[in-house]
């Protein structure tokens, strides 16, 4: 077995040192009821690298690769070009095979990288402090709701109807066990987010308002009025961002008064990977809230010779110290994805991120203009970044998406997939465009959509 260095001679020598007659002697404490007489049945025996590769490749071949078709899916996961050097760096064994930096003297590589990551995320979000990552955007969203409850000592959260429905589901799932009350709603099919309705739902018991920016329909609106309304009632504003590239073009949530900003970092460095692993981003605008944050924090300090160095800090918030009184149960986070994000962000820099954002927006505008020319198709949004909603003339978007997949076009995410059974949303299609989209892709989407709409009743 290519991964197991011990030889039978080694094993015999070691058993002799231990004073055991056989390996079974080391498992004597396993009760008879659980002793097996050999390898577990119904499973294959060991296999060569070639055989395993053949098996895995046959499974991979059954999937339609996003890069092999005109591709327009978003809704919380975006296909961006990841520079080749990102993957080279994250595959360095010193990063790949390290653990959480509990021994800082021999983990400065990971720690300094996390300090750079925290700085990049905080600046992108317009916040003071970001943590060293959580699992993904949806779990970060729940952690923000839980943190807001700790800060305000209130237990009610108001979710915008235009929050990603899976994020809302995660929050509602967790809330049913923790005694929090969640007010949610469906998205209104309007060209701009409906703020008055949301503001009207904030009251004196509200711990936080959760708003997505850009929202699930791709719309953008000034969050300042919501921040003011929330703060007037003593509530916090939690802003969720699922597309960090957008923040290269539009104002940061922190600038508009968000108290906690969370999001999905997958767009930078991580890739689609069928939904995971992704990268939860979490930041607070006011440093006074730091001690209520979940997850790891990396801080600067000095060593015994006075040299600058970095450590995990404020760990008295965390499970391994506080146990049942911890701010969260999180332990392992998303370290290697954070490295990928940071390397990609370093390659981009201020200038590159802004150029990337501009290119995404330019192509999205092009796509919106082209799709508007398809008979029966209407773009819903007034404002958008790289994703917008189109209405398909009363036709069921979910079926159209399936039909277009058969025609070789991955056309977008139907709201029918995200909101099954909600009649008003069935004809809406979310279309995302990034720098990887070509003008030919857009033309093919328009042409095939037109054909599909004609043939679908």
């Amino acid at each position, binding site marked *: 077995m290519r991964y197991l260095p011990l030889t039978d001679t080694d094993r015999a020598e070691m058993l002799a040192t231990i004073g055991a007659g056989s390996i079974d002697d080391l498992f004597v404490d396993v009760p008879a009821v659980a002793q097996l007489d050999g390898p577990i049945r119904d499973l294959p025996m060991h296999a060569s690298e070639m055989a395993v590769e053949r098996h895995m490749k046959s499974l991979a071949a059954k999937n339609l690769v996003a890069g092999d078709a005109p591709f327009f899916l978003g809704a919380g996961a975006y296909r961006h070009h990841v520079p080749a050097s990102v993957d080279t760096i994250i595959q360095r064994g010193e990063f790949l095979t390290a653990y959480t930096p509990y021994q800082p003297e021999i983990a400065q590589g990971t720690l300094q990288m996390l300090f750079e990551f925290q700085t990049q995320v905080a600046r992108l979000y317009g916040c003071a402090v970001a943590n060293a990552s959580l699992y993904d955007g949806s779990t970060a969203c729940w952690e923000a709701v839980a943190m807001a409850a700790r800060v305000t000592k209130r237990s009610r959260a108001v979710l915008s109807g235009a929050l990603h429905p899976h994020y809302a589901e995660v929050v509602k799932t967790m809330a049913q066990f923790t005694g929090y009350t969640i007010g949610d709603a469906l998205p209104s099919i309007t060209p701009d987010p409906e703020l008055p309705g949301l503001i009207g739902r904030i009251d004196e018991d509200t711990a936080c308002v959760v708003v997505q920016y850009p929202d699930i329909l791709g719309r953008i609106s000034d969050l300042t009025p919501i921040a003011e309304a929330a703060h007037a009632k003593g509530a916090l504003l939690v802003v969720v961002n699922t597309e960090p590239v957008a923040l290269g073009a539009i104002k940061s949530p922190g600038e508009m008064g968000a108290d906690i900003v969370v999001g999905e970092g997958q767009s930078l460095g991580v890739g689609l990977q069928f939904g995971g692993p992704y990268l939860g981003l979490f930041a607070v605008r006011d440093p006074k809230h*730091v001690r209520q944050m979940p997850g790891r924090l990396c801080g600067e*300090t000095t060593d015994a010779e006075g*040299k600058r160095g970095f450590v995990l800090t404020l760990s008295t918030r965390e499970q391994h110290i506080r146990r049942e009184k911890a701010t969260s149960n999180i332990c392992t986070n998303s370290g290697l994805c954070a490295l990928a994000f940071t390397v990609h962000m370093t390659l981009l820099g201020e200038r*590159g991120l802004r150029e990337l954002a501009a290119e995404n927006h330019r192509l999205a505008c092009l796509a919106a203009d082209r799709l508007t020319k398809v008979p029966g198709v209407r773009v819903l*949004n007034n404002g958008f970044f790289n994703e917008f909603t189109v209405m398909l003339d009363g036709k069921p978007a979910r079926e159209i998406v399936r039909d277009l997949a058969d025609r070789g076009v*991955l056309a977008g995410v139907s709201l029918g997939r995200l909101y099954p059974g909600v009649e008003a949303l069935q004809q809406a299609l979310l279309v995302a465009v990034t720098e990887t989209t070509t003008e030919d892709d857009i033309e093919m989407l328009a042409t095939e959509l037109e054909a599909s709409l004609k043939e679908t009743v």
Partner: protein
Amino acid sequence: MNAPNKSGWKPEMQVADDGFAGGPATTTGNRALMLEEPLLFEIGRADVTGVDLPSLDPARTTRLGGLERAEPIGLVGLTEPETVRHYTRLSRQNYGIDLGFFPLGSCTMKHNPRLNEKMARLPGFADIHPLQPQSTVQGALEVIAQLGEWLCKLTGMPGVAMSPKAGAHGELCGILAIRAAHTARGDAREVVLVPESAHGTNPATAAFAGYRVEDIPATPEGRVDVAALKARLGPDVAAVMITNPNTCGLFEKDFREIADAVHAAGGYVYCDGANFNAIVGRVRPGDLGVDAMHINLHKTFSTPHGGGGPGSGPVVFSEALAPYAPLPFVRQDESGAFYLVEEEHREERGPSFGRMTAFHGQMGMFTRALTYMLSHGADGLKQVAEDAVLNANYILRSMEDILHAPFAASGPCMHEALFGDKNFGGGLSTLDVAKGLIDEGYHPMTVYFPLVVHGAMLVEPTETESKAAIDQFITAFRAVVERALAGDEGLKQAPYYAPRRRLDETAAARKPKLAFEG
């Protein structure tokens, strides 16, 4: 067992305490291959980028809703050569499994096979969107189904939830299923029992799920006190959370008896599967009466730890809890096609407690773990457990004459050996031993955990170390322990040769500096 270094180095070739070996100071602060590296924000520039875009047409009109960013973000960029060098230099200040022995107890730092990395990067897995029409991702859904089947067979459990993102998320998944099962029968139980030796995530998870946590004591031999546990069972106890093998490195030999008692009292048994590597392929937790157990794919199934994640924490369930597993999950229809059961499948979802994450779990970890399982097979996995346990016992028996091993008489250890700091001289502590091992070229073991042993040192060698590597570690470990027993003052300043000396953690926490300023 004495295994000297064969590189030509001799013990008499001592270097000075400052590591300079008598040489002069350098102007750069670098020492040949030991390179100092500034922060990104000290070397990057706002107008530099390492990414060229295919076109840069000036934006004509924008539709950003009047929210164009006016202020600079405050980011800096580097070109590709500078980026590669910056992060390569940082990487060299890290210890990893690829570099050496990493016996971090309870973390299972085994070799990460590179085939796993290669398979996870196949475009058919890496470049597919979670919301693509399901007809276009049949292979991905099949990977989830196949991995789930392996996990069920290896654990002897009928149900599995694949979406939890890491071990602690898996714990939460198990506890929420238990809570949902009690709620479904109108049973409002409030207490979860957790042994003192448990990982901190156990009580944190139970509390996060709204339970009150009560400790169960351990016996002097390092196992759960069965009598105390039975005495505490009653109509208010929802579950017990027990790690097996436990964090003292021992198999809970009364686990079946505990499980039967918990079930008789109307509760459920949660098993923390962090230490599954000791028994994988040899013992099935389902045979011991477990109702729910998470499996850290990043431990037992070798997906890389990545400097703190990403992990993956699927949960296996008994018949009683399987119906409450979270959405989504993969099923197969009559035609053989795979599909996801989500919120819309009102009948098929049954009493599922809901959704824990936006998409379907850590796909990138699933492909790696499945590759690992296929490589090892049922026979190889059994050998994994046996070699891991053999290596740990070898270390235990090679150290117990000089290092306090509180449970050495409690039977063989499983895949980790636990020691304490008894008899150290001169006020030296476990921390000093750990830092001394750094100078010897090792990543230290887990220290000060579990809490039930004073100055605990938990050593987990894993199965992917050669006998020569373990012998050399034992030689070094004994030497450092002997210094601690002798009260060697020099150990208090260790490490001398790491990229940094001891770091001031108190100052870091007192006045937190959590982002670059300037």
